[in-house]
């Protein structure tokens, strides 16, 4: 598969009154056409800022992408003019957001919000756009589409609004759909419906997806590859089954242990990761996870481990990944 997106050394900071917030600290990854990549990590680790930087949706000021390259379709998105990046947004790369309650404009009809990108990017007139909007709503499973176009967001339930957001994201046939925690604000049954819907749409349409979540449980069903972020850094990247089966970073291990699992039954203990992520203003010198890590050694406090490939598809940023690996093997591969 051809590479669709290549992110190199992306760094984004916020210049606030309390100091410089190091939100994203040099992340690199690639994404193939039609591939689904998940980005996981605790809240505040830079997932949203990381992807919003790609299409330059970071509020400037206080934010600024201070370094890096984002190659998409032969161009570095960070170097495009404002006009050129607007041609990409909503058109080639679309984004859906966490909270469908607040992400739709309360004073405009669904129809208006749904058609405006198509009128802008596809040069459709009102009528054509409306016709396609009906198709899109049907596609995302909203019945009575023609009538519902004239309704306002408050007349839709949370799950329905997220379906509208998805329809909006897909309206211009993007090559990449970025979904930033699209199910976090929804209740569990609706979450599953939305995940299924996106999987189904992906089969039909074939766009690439970056799916952000802080819930590793959602990832298995949808992604082929997973990136684990911590304190604005990628600490581990692997194919989904490798990440679950052979996690190499103590943080990934912690995430897996803190995740509820059906196969272990209700009584299985959830072990949350102790401690808090580091202050992104006063960034620690060594490994940012060291203070919370069971496997740490002295070196972890002085040198931040670079991310390195362990196998051609699995990379990790940890001085002690071998210890993690050995321990898991000794336990028969189970991390519970």
């Amino acid at each position, binding site marked *: 598969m051809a590479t669709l997106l290549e992110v190199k050394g992306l760094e984004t900071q916020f210049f606030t009154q309390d100091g410089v917030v190091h939100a994203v600290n040099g992340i690199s990854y690639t994404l193939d056409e039609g591939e689904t990549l998940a980005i996981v990590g605790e809240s505040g680790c830079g997932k949203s800022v990381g992807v919003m930087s790609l299409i330059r949706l970071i509020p400037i000021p206080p934010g600024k992408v201070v370094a890096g390259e984002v190659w998409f379709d032969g161009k570095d998105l960070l170097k495009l003019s404002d006009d050129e990046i607007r041609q990409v947004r909503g058109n080639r790369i679309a984004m859906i957001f966490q909270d469908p309650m607040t992400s739709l404009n309360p004073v405009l009809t669904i129809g208006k919000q749904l058609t405006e990108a198509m009128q802008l990017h596809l040069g459709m007139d009102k009528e054509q756009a409306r016709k396609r909007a009906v198709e899109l709503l049907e596609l995302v499973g909203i019945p009575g589409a023609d009538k519902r176009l004239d309704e*306002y967001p408050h007349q839709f339930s949370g799950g329905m609004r997220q379906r509208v957001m998805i329809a909006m994201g897909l309206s211009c046939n993007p090559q990449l759909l970025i979904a930033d925690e699209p199910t976090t604000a929804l209740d569990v049954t609706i979450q599953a419906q939305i995940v299924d819907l996106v999987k189904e749409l992906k089969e039909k349409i074939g766009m690439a997806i970056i799916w952000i979540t802080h819930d590793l449980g959602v990832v298995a069903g949808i992604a082929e590859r997973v990136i684990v972020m911590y304190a604005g850094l990628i600490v581990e990247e692997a194919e989904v089954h490798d990440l679950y089966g052979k996690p190499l970073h103590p943080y990934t291990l912690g995430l897996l242990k803190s995740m509820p699992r059906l196969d272990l039954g209700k009584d299985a203990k959830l072990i949350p990761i102790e401690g808090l992520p580091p202050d992104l203003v006063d960034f620690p010198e060594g490994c940012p996870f060291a203070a919370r890590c069971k496997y740490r050694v002295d070196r972890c406090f002085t040198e931040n481990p670079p991310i390195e490939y362990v196998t051609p598809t699995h990379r990790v940023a940890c001085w002690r990944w071998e210890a993690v690996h050995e321990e898991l093997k000794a336990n028969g591969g189970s991390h519970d």
Partner: protein
Amino acid sequence: MLQFIVRRILWAIPVLLAVTFFTFALVRAIPGGPFDFAGDRSLPPSVVANLEAKYHLSDPLWQQFCSYLIGDTVCRPGDDSGRASKGVLLGDLGPSFRYRGRTVNDIIATALPISFQLGMMAMMLGIGIGIPFGVLAALKHNTWIDYSATLVAILGVSVSNVVLGPVLIWFFALKLGWFPVATWAAEPLFSGIADKYIAASEQIPMWVNIIPKPTVDFFMHAALPVFALGTALSATIARMTRGSLLQVIREDYIRTARSKGLRERAVVVRHALKNSLIPVVTILGPMFAGVLTGTFVIELIFAIPGLGRHFVNSIGNRDYPVVLGTTLLYGVAIVIANMLVDITYAWLDPRVRLE
């Protein structure tokens, strides 16, 4: 919608009754009476007693209130003075104590149209300048445009009309001679109708006076006071608009709009403006009511015979019916303004239903 308006009006009735009652009680609680002085001289007690008897001020208070409210024919049967009031409920605000021979209705019918014209033009100017400048300041947040707009707005709010008015007169009227120094020059647009009333030496009804003939003279006279009042209003409106828009621009749905690739102008005009006007409309309501019923300072400085001075002077004069009449008028204006605010809300925000 109609149901909403009817319900609102029904609600307003007890409110206005309470306003009437308390104003009636309060104004009579102020020491002194309407006939203590004639000009600078105090009147002999016998004359005062006569006058008070003539206006029924020696009657028990409940009876005075009763006849103010529902008229002399009901509460003071047998009054054959020929000046029997029909009562506030039928729209009769009674005679003025100070302006002999004039009723409060006459005073309002003459003065309100002038205040209304001044206030309306000032509001239009205030909104016309205030909202665009507020939007501009918000869009150019933290640039010199924002800072200078904010500075002008702060000046506009804090430099009172007491200062601005005379400065305008001194410079544009006296020094440059571009505008007349003071007074108002409105002729009724329907002068034919007005003439008929004048010929019959009757009070011209208010509605005839309210719409002015758009003559050069009218606008030349209006220019300075409208400018002074309008800029003061626009300063407040601009500050509100700026603050509100800066709030809205941080909302999630604005990020969604940007993520579609819309131009910043479309984002602001289509997605942010309507939302940001919702709180602005809230202050426009009472502002409207206040300005349309007369502004004391501006009318005083520019010698405009509007209603503003009656609000203030009537209290000093203990002209009870005028105090009550102007207060009630203001109450009605507030009720109407709030109704308009709610209707505007419903138009701006589909979540608001008029029920």
